[in-house]
């Protein structure tokens, strides 16, 4: 614990925390996109869309070993902690940097820094805002941008994303996430001291490739609904899903 | 008359240093060392290594330099390498041979036993540097690599690409920083020594100007070590860093220290030629290039073709033709004089006509482009950056430039000047290189002085004196401080029209013309007339903008130029009095029919030591006779 504290106090340590929490969030995104793709796999023989089943599965995963929802909530806690930590350290680091460079140049020019790298704070802020919005939209249904009913994931998506502004907004944010990750994933390797000239090319290509794959996967969902490529789902009774 | 006791140990040369340490030198015990304060002025190889070593021993050391960090001393710029007689190549090298080469290279104008000690310590320097983490070049098996360097027949030069000085200095600097962190050494950066304080004939401290605030303060000590480098910048254009100066040495000279062999200046044969009047310094191309480059000029003065298109028969490989045995590897002075000679004949190349080709075509053909490039990568890059030409495509153009000054404060075998308690080490003393320095030997000398000699010899002096028996309250400090302030104010008060820079440039031209590659009586006498005239104008027409109580680079420069003006005169005087040719000191009156330097051992086998006699009075020449017991005098001959 002592070690973690000292690590946290140092600027490299803070970066490492950004990297590790970034990695956790990145892992979440991977899982999330894999789950999302179930939108495209259709329905089971009872007419329940796979994505709805999947949503339900997440709620009960871990049963009977653990009480229902325990796993989901633990995961949510870890993610929440990660997001908070990630934001805390990057904000702290950004403040340090602002102090370290209080006067800017009259004329300034960059030789190497990519826009993605320079705009991490911006892309991150968009993501942060989006996370809140996204939860209020599809998880709690607090923000109503179409018809919403708990558990009917497919229909909720279909209803919201038929609105071009909602779909467009989501697509835009996904691109922003992609930009964040394009620098973020490679940066993580560098921060953890995993990158070196031997692997640099591979790690950079791989980071971009994986990021692209994730983002295209995410974008596919709103885009497909928007362009009317997705069939209407059958109406089914809610207890069919929960088994009650 | 100065008392010049060289304190040479009476013992066979092979074990003179050991004998001296065992029998002649007193030591200071570890408990007493912290009580002694030693000031080291300079943080180059000599100063940093000395300060670090003495700090580690426990002395209370204060170190000064005028740059913003000790790591920036001029030593950082040395490119080629450092000699050591390790004999890793099994090519017959030995302490004796390095001694022989150095003494012969110096044309027998150095003190034998000093030179032998230098050769003896050379191997320990490499060991020391490696233990600090200096990343010398290695061979495939992981052992240290060597290359050969101008004027010798063995491969004994250790190197780090073309940045040997940088790596050695970073090693010494890191050792110094270790001692600074340990609070054994206190570092004063951006401080310039402007005078020496002498009390009762002993050196007791210095007066410095804080270059940032203009504050002038005194520092007292039990001993003062000057490691302030060389004074090649008296020529304005030289390969030295812009800040190199003679001020510290010259101030010490004015306070009674003898100045030895001031006219011995090494002209380096391979530097990039000047391109115009605005030129501020000359860039050296390491001499190691001569290992693979062939030097030539067109045979025809009217040659118009591009160098590549000139066929072999129309090329004059003048060094290979004139000196078949050593060819392009003749000693520096020989190479330099021959370059000047062919250019004076009108065969020179480049826009100014003062340049010769250094051609790598043959080496590239023989060894392959990659082998040549890997050896000289950063030198080629440097050349291309400056001239816009790629040496792989077209031959380099080179010309001699002032590079190193063998002269310096006179010191005895313990590296102490004739002022008790005042030491001079590194390039700032005169000791080991005679009338000419062998390539890659200066780094060696600076580090031998700093790591191994001064830490031992200084104890002998200190142990004979009470520690800490003086403070800056002593009137001598106040007096010197006042004198320094007055000088600053006097400079500020001239209020003429010309910058210090313009005077420096003009002095440089005078020195190059009258006291340069080759010298003669008339020309030296003319120089001796021109310099005082210029100094007079300096005092009449100098313009110094700004405030002396602030960072004021014009003022710093003016102070240095003023000392150069006085010193330039001393140089010409020495060159005039030394009526022989030896090493790099080439008096046109004394040459063989083939144009070789002709030494006069009968009359001039001595060290010229000048004694300050007051403003406007001619300095007095003192002589330290040299004896040649171990290595009998022989004429230098690089022809066969």
């Amino acid at each position, binding site marked *: 614990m002592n070690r973690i504290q000292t690590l946290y106090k140092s600027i490299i340590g803070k970066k490492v925390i950004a990297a590790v929490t970034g990695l956790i969030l990145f892992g979440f995104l991977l899982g999330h996109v894999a789950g999302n793709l179930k939108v495209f796999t259709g329905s089971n023989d009872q007419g329940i869309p796979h994505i709805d089943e999947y949503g339900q599965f997440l709620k009960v995963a871990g049963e009977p070993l653990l009480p229902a929802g325990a796993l989901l909530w633990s995961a949510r806690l870890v993610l929440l902690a990660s997001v908070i930590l990630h934001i805390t350290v990057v904000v702290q*680091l950004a403040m340090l*940097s602002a*102090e370290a460079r209080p006067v800017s140049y009259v004329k300034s020019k960059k*030789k190497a*820094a990519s826009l993605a790298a320079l705009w991490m704070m911006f892309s991150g802020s968009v993501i942060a805002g989006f996370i809140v919005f996204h939860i209020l939209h599809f998880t709690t249904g607090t923000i109503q941008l179409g018809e919403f009913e708990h558990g009917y994931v497919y229909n909720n998506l279909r209803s919201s994303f038929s609105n071009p502004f909602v779909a467009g907004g989501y697509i835009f944010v996904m691109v922003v996430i992609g930009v964040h990750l394009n620098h973020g994933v490679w940066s993580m390797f560098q921060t953890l001291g995993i990158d070196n000239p031997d692997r640099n090319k591979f790690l950079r290509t791989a980071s971009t490739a994986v990021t692209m794959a994730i983002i295209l996967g995410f974008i596919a969902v709103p885009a497909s609904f928007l362009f009317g490529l997705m069939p209407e789902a059958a109406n089914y009774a809610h207890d069919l899903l929960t088994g009650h | 008359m100065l008392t010049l006791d060289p304190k040479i140990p009476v013992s066979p040369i092979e074990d003179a240093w050991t004998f001296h340490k065992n029998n002649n030198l007193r030591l200071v015990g570890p408990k007493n060392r912290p009580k002694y304060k030693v000031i080291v002025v300079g943080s180059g190889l000599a100063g940093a290594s000395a300060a670090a070593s003495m700090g580690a021993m426990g002395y209370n050391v204060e170190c000064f330099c005028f740059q913003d960090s000790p790591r*920036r001393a001029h030593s950082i710029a040395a490119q080629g390498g450092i000699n050591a007689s390790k004999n890793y190549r099994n090519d017959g090298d030995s302490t004796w041979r390095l001694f022989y080469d150095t003494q012969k290279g110096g044309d027998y104008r150095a003190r034998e036993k000093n030179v032998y000690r230098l050769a003896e310590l050379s191997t320990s320097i490499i060991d020391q540097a490696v233990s600090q983490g200096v990343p010398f*070049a290695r061979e495939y098996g992981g052992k240290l690599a060597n290359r050969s360097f101008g004027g010798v027949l063995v491969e004994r030069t250790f190197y780090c690409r073309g940045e040997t000085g940088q790596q050695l200095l970073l090693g010494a600097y890191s050792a110094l920083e270790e001692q600074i962190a340990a609070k054994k050494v206190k570092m004063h*950066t951006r401080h310039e020594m402007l005078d020496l304080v002498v009390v009762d004939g002993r050196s007791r401290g210095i007066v410095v100007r804080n270059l940032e605030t203009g504050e002038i303060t005194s520092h007292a000590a039990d001993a003062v070590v000057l490691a302030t480098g060389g004074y090649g910048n008296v020529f304005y254009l030289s390969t030295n860093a812009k800040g190199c100066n003679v001020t510290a040495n010259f101030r010490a000279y004015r306070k009674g220290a003898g100045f030895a062999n001031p006219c011995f200046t090494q002209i380096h044969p391979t530097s990039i030629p000047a391109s115009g009047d605005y030129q501020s310094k000359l860039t050296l191309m390491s001499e190691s290039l001569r290992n693979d480059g062939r030097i030539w000029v067109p045979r025809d003065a009217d040659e118009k073709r591009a160098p590549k298109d000139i066929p072999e028969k129309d090329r004059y490989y003048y060094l290979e033709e004139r000196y078949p045995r050593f060819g392009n590897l003749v000693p520096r002075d020989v190479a330099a004089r021959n370059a000047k000679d062919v250019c004076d004949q009108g065969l020179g190349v480049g826009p100014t006509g003062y340049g010769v080709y250094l051609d790598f075509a043959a080496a590239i053909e023989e060894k392959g482009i990659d082998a040549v490039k890997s050896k000289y990568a950063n030198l080629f890059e440097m050349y291309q950056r400056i001239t816009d030409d790629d040496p792989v495509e077209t031959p380099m153009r080179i010309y001699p430039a002032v590079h190193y000054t063998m002269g310096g404060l006179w010191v005895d075998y313990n590296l102490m000047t004739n002022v008790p308690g005042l030491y001079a080490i590194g390039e700032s003393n005169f000791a080991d290189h005679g009338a000419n320095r062998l390539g890659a030997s200066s780094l060696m000398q600076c580090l031998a002085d700093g790591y*191994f000699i001064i830490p031992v010899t200084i104890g002998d002096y200190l142990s004979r004196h009470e520690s800490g028996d003086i403070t800056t309250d002593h009137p001598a400090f106040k007096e010197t401080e006042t004198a320094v302030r007055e000088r600053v104010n006097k400079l500020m008060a001239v209020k003429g029209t010309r910058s210090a820079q313009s005077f420096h440039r003009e002095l440089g031209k005078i020195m190059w013309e009258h006291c340069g590659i080759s010298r003669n009586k008339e020309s030296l006498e003319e120089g001796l007339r021109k310099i005082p005239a210029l100094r007079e104008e300096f005092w009449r027409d100098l313009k110094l903008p700004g405030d002396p109580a602030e960072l004021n680079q014009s003022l710093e420069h003016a102070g240095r130029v003023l000392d150069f003006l006085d010193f330039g005169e001393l140089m010409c005087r020495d060159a005039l009095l030394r009526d022989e040719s030896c090493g790099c000191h080439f008096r046109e009156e004394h040459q063989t029919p083939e144009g070789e330097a002709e030494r006069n051992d009968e009359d001039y086998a001595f060290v010229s030591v000048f004694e300050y006699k007051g403003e406007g009075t001619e300095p007095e020449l003192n002589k330290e006779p040299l004896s040649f017991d171990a290595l009998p005098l022989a004429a230098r001959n690089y022809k066969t």
Partner: protein
Amino acid sequence: MRIKLHVWRQSSRSDKGHMESYELDNVVEEMSFLEMMDTLNEKLTVEGKEPVAFDHDCREGVCGMCSMVINGEAHGPKSKTTTCQLYMRHFDDGAEIFIEPWRASAFPVVRDLVVDRSAFDRIIQAGGYVSNHSGPKPDPNSIPIEPNIAETALDAATCIGCGACVAACPNGSAMLFTSAKASHLGLLPQGQPERFDRAKSMVSQMESEGFGSCRNYAECEAQCPKGISIAFIGRLNSDFLKASLVEPIDRRGDMKAQ
């Protein structure tokens, strides 16, 4: 050539400073950038104005003294080149050139273009050395070093301590400099005993000097006149992590059996 200069002028640490403009018409292509500055200063001196203070010494790209941000780039537009090695042929006739000092709170401006870089020395004091005394040492060939490793160490040791990396970094980070020194020693056998302590103490000194945090922009590498690679930053990160998380703190403490 004719050029227009905009130069930062500041008379002391406490002065606010401002940009001032000058015109020069006697510039030639073969001049180095600093020779152009000399020309400007000569002109200012003769006109009775104060010349521009700037640091310089070797003028051949090794002492690390020169330090100008030229048109927004540390050491100017040519890569792997110090200010003193930059030539006017890299500028067009009629060019407008902005010259500013290194900007970082750890490098306070002393006057005009001169900054105080003593923070770098203190980082070295924190551990940028192999603890050592002068005296007899083992023969270097008794510890062979793979040439590739020696060369990589030399790549790192090539750093001239100019501070361009800090000046170039939008975060004012000194990671490139610090990592170059730590890696130089950390790669060599001589530097092993202190390797992990060195990483920790140099980084902590770097922090207390007020340098910012590295965000992997690689701007430092691009503007470093010696092309020092950010690979060394990765190395230092990794050494620092090992030092903080893995290396035993209490190697020699008591132990009991269960």
